[in-house]
């Protein structure tokens, strides 16, 4: 089987390495793409279809009839506005915090790590070899009422004795920030690493001090990384429910929690489906606006 016709180019001069008029690429693409269509596209479409269904009066739980009831979307949105808003707010804050923490970290690894660079990169990723659930639960215990943080805080005189950190929005956002940190750090690092240090030297030669160089040269050049990292953090964070479930309380529920409960607790598939699509649509809109504004083509 010839995987590699492409290398001897039969046309296309400047960008060689690609061959046309062959059935090989289609054979290579078929299995994977069929898998994706079957187990991604079709389910999504099926979910779309479910979102407009209705459970007929008196029918068994879990049976639905297609009635093209687009009102489902409105109903779902209206009764879950708070959770929607909260999801995007939490995800947004978490993204900003992650950026604040990750940027200096990535900067340091890219420019100031010398021969330790590879070790440091491994160390950034290493914590994520431990199951993220274990880590999140570790936070519940570390921030928990019996845990070291509360105990230390209680030693401070003016701190209220009934202070708690778990089951608070603070804990949820912290969890989100923590869990998505490598998704922010690695793209930032990749972008910063590509900057030729001589560009920065040139800026200095042209009378820019350290901070101005950073502001006018480094930051703009690292924008592709910032965009990639932000998207890779925000998108999954907005749809997360584990952090809210473990570190939050009923009043910190995010939209992911609602969707999950509509599948397992209160069986209401159409609502869950409608919520899912509204979530996806919102994310897509925000992402498109964001990309348009920061003007990056290549994400992947």
């Amino acid at each position, binding site marked *: 089987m010839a*995987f*590699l016709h492409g290398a001897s180019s039969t046309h296309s001069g400047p960008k060689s390495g690609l061959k*046309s008029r062959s059935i090989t690429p289609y054979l290579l693409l078929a299995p994977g793409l069929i*898998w994706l269509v079957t187990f991604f596209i079709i389910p999504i479409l099926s979910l779309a279809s479910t979102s407009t269904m209705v459970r007929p009066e008196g029918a068994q739980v879990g049976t639905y009839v297609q009635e093209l009831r687009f009102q489902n979307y409105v109903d779902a949105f209206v009764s879950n506005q708070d959770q929607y808003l909260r999801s995007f707010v939490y995800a947004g804050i978490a993204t900003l915090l992650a950026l604040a923490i990750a940027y200096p970290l990535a900067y340091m690894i890219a420019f100031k790590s010398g021969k330790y660079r590879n070790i440091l990169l491994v160390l950034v990723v290493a914590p994520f*070899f431990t199951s993220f659930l274990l880590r999140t639960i570790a936070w519940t215990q570390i921030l928990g009422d019996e845990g070291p943080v509360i105990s230390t805080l209680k030693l401070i005189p003016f701190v209220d004795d009934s202070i708690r950190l778990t089951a608070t929005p603070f804990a949820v956002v912290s969890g989100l920030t923590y869990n998505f940190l490598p998704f922010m750090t690695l793209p930032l690092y990749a972008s910063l690493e590509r900057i030729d240090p001589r560009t920065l030297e040139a800026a200095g030669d042209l009378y820019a001090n350290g901070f101005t160089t950073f502001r006018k040269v480094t930051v703009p050049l690292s924008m592709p990384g910032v965009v990639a990292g932000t998207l890779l953090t925000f998108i999954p964070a907005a749809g997360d429910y584990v952090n809210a479930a473990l570190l939050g309380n009923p009043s910190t529920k995010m939209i992911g929690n609602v969707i999950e409960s509509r599948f397992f607790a209160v069986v209401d598939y159409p609502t869950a489906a409608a919520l899912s699509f509204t979530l996806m649509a919102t*994310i897509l809109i925000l992402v498109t606006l964001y990309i348009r504004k920061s003007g990056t083509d290549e994400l992947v």
Partner: protein
Amino acid sequence: MPSLNHRAARWFSRNLIRIYAGLAFIYLFIPVAYTFAFSFNDAGKSNLVWQGFTLDNWKNPCGAPQVCQAVANSLQIGILSTTIATVLGTMIAFALGRHKFRGRTSTNLLIFLPMATPEVVLGASLLAMFLNLRINPGFWTIVISHVMFCISFVVVTVKARIASLDPRLEQAAMDLYANERETFRYVTLPLVMPGIAGAALLAFSLSFDDFIITNFNSGVVSTFPKFVYVSAARGIPAQANVIGSAMFFIALIIVIVGQVVSRQRKKS
């Protein structure tokens, strides 16, 4: 002669970023350290409060019921999904990186979409489809779902590696009497292999650690993350900490060995 304070201030401002990074690293490792520490807790069923140091958990990691079953499931699922996803994803990557065909933009979009979709939606939609088809979620639905979301990551990783491959190497091979098949076998594949290996590792870790999509599509089958989540309420057995810490060290060793090997390869 600058004063001590002055010199300290200068040192501080120059190394500010290193200090900051150090703090960030500490922050990253706190839960890991905590998990590791509590794997030695002599805790019985509820591993919430420190009760005493013991090596028993490490000696008997399967002591708590269902821990090892969950891990075994996760490993099996991981290996299966990784294998399938790596093969399918690598094929797609080669098609994208070395062939011209129509529908390239659509293909890229199809690869990108799962990575941009929230896991809740991926999991929920797949479950909905399974239920519609009257398929009971279980072991194989988990595998199917894992392959689905891993393919994209494999494609991206391998594609990047292929792109960095100088096409003139393959041209040189053909110039030296290797036909297409031999060129692939002796030149292309060996050079792309590190990318494929990296993609496989990535896929395995995504699969092993996945919770949300798995939770939707597993029915009663237990995986390690699912086990941890479910036992969170009543207390996670210390053996789970043992497993988590062990995974951490194993993965760390694999990565370090990989780095050392590739550095050796470059030298010799």
